[in-house]
């Protein structure tokens, strides 16, 4: 039993060495051990050329597989992004026509949501910035208007730029702004007061999200920073300057 095992192993080893020598030196070594003990009549003995071809083609397949894997991993990034946009997977919004969505939207009457407004300024920003209304009760699918007021008490014109935040985090994906005053520089002349409206709606799909079942209050918080020359604020990359 053990003898047979040793013989088989030797045969395998020699076959490997044979393959190597076929590739490198292009000849076949016909060792005694390699010739089967009981050769069948219709066994086709491969020539050195065929053996080499077979090994080379296998090698080609392996290299092609490797290259394909590397290529796929590079292509996966934009492909995944396109897939997400097409199917709105994971909250990414696609290039859906916003007008269509808004005009077909219906207000859902049995789920009023209270949106509270918060206003902040950076510590070096001298504007007085506050919301005109502390909160507003809105229905999902219904567009709403809200106002903030900003006053520039200084004697110089001050330019500000704002960003916003929605709390709780999961509600942020349903909060759609049609128009507002954020991300673009707004200049206030000295001693000027101005009203800043925010026109928004809450996506009707809000009611279908199980995580939102007990959330009836959303806080919308705006923060104003001062825009100085050469100051780089963390503005999102898609905003055109």
């Amino acid at each position, binding site marked *: 039993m053990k003898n047979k095992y040793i013989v088989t192993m030797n045969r395998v080893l020699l076959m490997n060495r044979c393959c190597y020598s076929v590739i490198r030196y292009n000849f076949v070594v016909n060792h005694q051990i390699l010739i089967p003990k009981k050769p069948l009549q219709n066994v086709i003995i491969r020539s050195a050329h065929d053996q080499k071809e077979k090994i080379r083609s296998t090698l080609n397949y392996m290299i092609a597989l490797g290259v394909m894997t590397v290529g796929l991993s590079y292509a996966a990034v934009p492909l995944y992004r396109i897939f997400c946009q097409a199917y709105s997977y994971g909250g990414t919004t696609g290039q859906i026509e*916003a007008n269509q969505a808004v005009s077909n939207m219906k207000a859902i009457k049995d789920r009023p949501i209270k949106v509270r407004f918060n206003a902040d300024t950076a510590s070096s920003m001298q504007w007085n910035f506050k919301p005109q209304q502390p909160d507003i009760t809105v229905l999902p699918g219904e567009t709403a208007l809200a106002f903030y007021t900003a006053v520039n008490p200084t004697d110089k014109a001050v330019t500000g730029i704002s960003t916003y935040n929605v709390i709780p985090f999961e509600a942020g994906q349903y909060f759609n702004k049609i128009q507002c005053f954020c991300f673009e520089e707004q200049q206030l002349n000295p001693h000027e007061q101005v009203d*800043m409206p925010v026109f928004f709606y809450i996506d009707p799909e809000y009611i279908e999200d199980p995580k939102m079942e007990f959330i009836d209050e959303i806080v919308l918080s705006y923060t104003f920073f001062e825009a100085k020359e050469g100051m780089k604020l963390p503005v999102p990359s898609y905003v055109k300057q």
Partner: protein
Amino acid sequence: MSTAMTFGQKQFIPTPPDKGSFPLDHEGICKKTMVRYMKCLINNNSNNSLCRDEAKEYLACRMENNLMAKEDWNNLGFQENKEER
């Protein structure tokens, strides 16, 4: 906003508004309509559904005075036929 604690937590990504930014109303042209809207809100306990007409007036004022791009009312969520409400 980004402290050591927030690493690994989900990050809020602000999205740009659909129709861009409102130009500032420096002269206060639409202030009257705004005050009317605010009064309506105060009277109705900050209920948006009851004050939509005033909101529509404010946006109309903005559009007329070149403070907002002219939009179809449907695209802003103000359906024309009353049966929808």
